[in-house]
């Protein structure tokens, strides 16, 4: 086995452990149950609306996966690393024959596996609700769900970056704030170019918006894209769009992980 294979095996050991810790945590089960409850609630709402059942289930279902996914991503991304430091479980792992970056990347890999499993699980539940109501899931929904997963993976990379140097609560707050800002880049950009035009604050805001992660591109249903409204019901983004969003998520997320590794390497575990 080559050096890369051995290195992957070590990261996989950490990832597997991270996955087990995550899925056995009751908080996670409760959050997933909330998402499913929201989908069930959409059935009730659907009954109240005339001929719009499928539409409402799709919209609320995707919103549920996204919102609870974000909460889960912040919980996992921040909790799993900070808890290692707080509970001192890391003291026993770092001296083992692995590199510090393998530990950190292994943790992230474990989060990726966990989050992918959860999004697939919630999507399957949504698909079940849709079929039960006589609708169908289709490729457009799959694209929307993949975009949500990409968003969550990027958010977890951002959360890991913060938790590699700061406390759990601060990390969750910073990452959460970045998500809110990243979801509202269009409004903030309009603000910078409108009210704040030609002020120092406006220019600063525009530069910041370019640097901060753009989470808006991952939740496109109902969004205004190049002056056309894109939704999962009619015109929706192409596979090419999903591909370019994936490249963005991987590039931005990759840079966050590199920064997290650099910070994590210098850290004293006291």
């Amino acid at each position: 086995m080559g050096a890369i294979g051995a290195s992957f095996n070590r990261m996989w050991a950490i990832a597997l452990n991270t996955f087990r810790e995550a899925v056995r945590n009751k908080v996670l089960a409760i959050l997933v149950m909330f998402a499913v409850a929201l989908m069930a609630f959409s059935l009730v709402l659907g009954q109240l609306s005339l001929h719009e059942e499928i539409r409402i289930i799709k919209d609320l279902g995707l919103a549920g996966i996204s919102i609870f996914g974000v909460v889960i991503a912040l919980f996992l991304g921040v909790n799993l690393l900070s808890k290692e430091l707080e509970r001192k479980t890391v003291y026993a792992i770092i001296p083992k024959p692995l590199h510090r970056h393998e530990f950190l990347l292994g943790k992230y890999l474990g989060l990726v596996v966990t989050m992918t499993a959860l999004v697939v699980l919630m999507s399957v539940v949504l698909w079940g609700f849709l079929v039960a109501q006589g609708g169908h899931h289709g490729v457009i929904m799959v694209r929307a769900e993949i975009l949500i997963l990409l968003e969550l993976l990027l958010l977890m990379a951002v959360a890991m970056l913060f938790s590699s140097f700061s406390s759990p609560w601060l990390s969750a707050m910073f990452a959460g704030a970045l998500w809110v800002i990243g979801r509202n880049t269009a409004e903030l950009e309009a603000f910078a170019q409108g009210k704040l035009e030609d002020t120092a604050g406006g220019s600063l805001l525009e530069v910041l918006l370019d640097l901060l992660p753009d989470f808006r591109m991952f939740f496109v249903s109902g969004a205004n894209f190049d002056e056309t409204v894109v939704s999962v019901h009619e015109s929706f983004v192409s596979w090419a769009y999903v591909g370019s969003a994936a490249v963005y998520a991987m590039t931005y997320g990759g840079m966050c992980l590199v920064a997290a590794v650099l910070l994590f390497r210098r850290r004293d575990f006291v």
Partner: protein
Amino acid sequence: MTAPVLEVEGLRKEFVRGFLRKRTVAVDGISFAVEPGEVFGFLGPNGAGKTTTMKMLMGLIHPSAGKATILGAEVGDLDAKRRIGYLPENPYFYDYLSATEYLHMVGRIYGLDRATRDKRAAELLGRVGLAMAQGRAMRSYSKGMLQRVGLAQALIGDPELVVLDEPMSGLDPIGRREVRELILDLRAQGKTVFFSTHILADANLLCDRVAIIVKGKLRDVGPLGELLSPKVHRIEVLWQGDEALQAQLREQFPASHSSSSEGQVFVAEAQEQLDRFLAAILAGGGEVSSVTPQRETLEQLFVRDAGLSPEEQRS
């Protein structure tokens, strides 16, 4: 002569905390070496700097200065790490994993195949007396049980060097005896054991040699038998002489002069210095009243420094 398993040279750690940049010197330039096959005790009161030193050796803390070599390699070298097992102080492991799952994970990191992991995990859990609890989530474990998992995970890679930070803490008297037996077993297998303790009796029963650390400074290194027997650290000389002689001797021997109602007091640090000092008194027409060795046992050393943290200075 074989190379030392562990060699520490001038290792130092200074913590800088908070807004005021408050500095604490936790480990103050210590040097020692651990030879292959010995049980080496790292002995000192609470807060002496034992854990900090061990964390520097294990790559958890970056030293402020100095150097450490383990198994011929720098700290952090993967091949060296593969031959080391480490038990952290008051260890804690993952809430939702069982001891068996944890040992498997650690075994994977050591690169062991499944059969070896199965065999060693079962063997070690039996060895540390956890066989009945091995499948339970570790959040339900008591402190003593976590300590036992800690010992098992330190040994799963069949290491040549075992580093244990307070291995007896959190255990009842029977558990302590089991750990002592475990350490002696490891020595019988030819392993090197480096462990820290603040309990003299434990060190006394187990160690070939000890290093004594107090307030971040290394006080002594050697076989405990020698260090434990009352040892003359200083010799006090009570003497009389005229003013001129007093001035002359104070100049000639700069340290440790004082006067008491009975005469002049000088404290010699070494035999050779004492001999020269006595000769100088007699040559100058003075008179020696008494020469008293000041003996200090290890307990006294500990008691004197116990509860005192290292000097904290503000920069």
